[in-house]
């Protein structure tokens, strides 16, 4: 699977309150949540993001709460994947469980600029910057995580295999 979109850059330690503030957690409706995605980090994000776009952030993306509303909001806003040097662990597992592709790469996160057009090969973990011509290889994922992504998330995985 190949993903393609513009890069939206964010800094280090973007927490889940910035991704989707708790004042909107009285619903889990993706259509409502996407309107407020990244609101406390960049209030203009939800009006500018388009289908396929890619969040490129600093270290420890998604730190803080366990709210699955965070990856739900990101996915619903059309973002095709997230790239960062590291992810907070609950956000990390939530993304795999929900089938939102995420990639760990220090270099890609550092070198990609706001608005660069990116192409990501999900299976190979190759991130190409179509503006500069640079390519980056994301950190490899354990077989189980690849299985989760190819099955389409944890629920689909459990249904297909009858176990975790």
């Amino acid at each position, binding site marked *: 699977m190949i993903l393609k979109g513009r890069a939206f850059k964010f800094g280090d330690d973007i927490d889940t309150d910035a991704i989707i*503030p708790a004042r909107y957690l009285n619903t889990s409706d993706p259509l409502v949540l996407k309107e407020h995605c990244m609101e406390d980090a960049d209030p203009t994000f939800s009006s500018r993001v388009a289908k396929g776009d890619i969040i490129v952030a600093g270290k*420890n993306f998604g730190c*803080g709460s366990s709210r699955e509303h965070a990856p739900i909001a990101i996915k619903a806003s059309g973002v095709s994947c997230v790239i960062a040097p590291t992810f907070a662990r609950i956000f990390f597992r939530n993304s795999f469980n*929900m089938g939102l592709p995420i990639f760990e790469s220090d270099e890609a996160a550092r070198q990609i600029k706001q608005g660069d057009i990116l192409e990501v090969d999900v299976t190979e973990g190759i991130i190409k910057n179509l503006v500069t011509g640079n390519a980056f290889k994301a950190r490899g994922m354990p077989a189980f995580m690849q299985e989760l992504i190819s099955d389409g998330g944890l629920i689909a995985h459990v249904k297909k295999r009858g176990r975790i």
Partner: protein
Amino acid sequence: MTIAEKILKSHTPDKGFKQGDIIRVDIDIALANDITAPIAIDAFKSCSKKGVFDKDKVVLVLDHFTPNKDIASATQCKVVRDFAKEYHITNFFDGGEVGIEHALLPEEGLALPGDLIIGADSHTCTYGGLGAFATGVGSTDLGVAMSTGQAWLKVPESMKFIFRGELNRWVGGKDLILYLIGDIGVDGALYKVLEIEGPAISSLDLSNRLTMTNMAIEAGAKAGIIAPDVVTDVYIKTRAKRDYTMYESDPDALYSMVKEYDCANIEPQVAYPHLPENTRGISEVGEIILDQVVIGSCTNGRIEDLRVAAGIMKDNKVARGLRCIIIPATPKVLKAAEAEGLIKVFLDACAIISPPTCGPCLGGHMGVLAEGERALATTNRNFTGRMGHPKSEVYLAGPAIAATSAITGKISSPKEVVA
């Protein structure tokens, strides 16, 4: 082996694992709240054929936006209420039985030493203070766990932090953990277990231990663990309704890092906006005027915390122009505070008493901040917008600094008001 590895080994069919392997684990408790349970229930219904794996091991606590703050949150709670009824969930806490989940489960003897607990709430790591392996997960994990009784986990590395020496006056578990987070940063223990020990920890009561492991997630940790001892056993043996096992790490257990702190160097701590790692000793804090003080939460809402606060607030008044909100974490804490005369102290001081709820900690209700307002709270997070408007500020501290600051109207050391 570390204590974490021993607990994992006793809960997995995947024997012979090593660090970094992904294993399936059988869980003792699957926990969710009114924000995370509705999504978990959807996940559960889409993969379950025959009900919950064990109606005694699913714990549902409606603690975040309750008493329901608006129609939308009432609707979410109704989903959970209906589910709990349909599936005969034994440990469903609603109405006057609601306490803040991570204060409630230890108090009710539901979380026990040696348990493997997952919760769709990031502060599930609190139960490590009892010697459990407890970790926060998402709603999908929780939904699958309610159906299968299992979860997937990557076997983490462990880091060990040893606290030596005597605690300075007014220093508690909150100050020790803020100091640790200030030292290693908000991702200092990312994906790892944070094992805490040492003579200073052995001398802490269980409440202060739970405060420390509660904030392990604030260093990115998967779990925080304090090995159970006689203090743990005394606390839990009268509450537990099932058997438990007290594990400890072997002397030759492997750690990715071992670090020691001398408590003589640790003064009461304050974390500045907007990350828990922005810590300073109270002596380095300048004049910071406050609009609100919150004393409560799963971090510092237990009776021990309220005793510290009341000791300072007795015969004093909350500063004019400041709102001080006291949130006993559970109904039993509220009852004890009433019986001990603490509630009278708070009311005489013109503090506000809230029913047990997470409330303002996550900017839900019961004390949300306006633009430009500044609060000091005994809670665990001070992210941008955490307690309300994105341009409000939250400072974190323990109950002693919080109570003192409520009286003086600015962030203050207890030394200023107590002889």
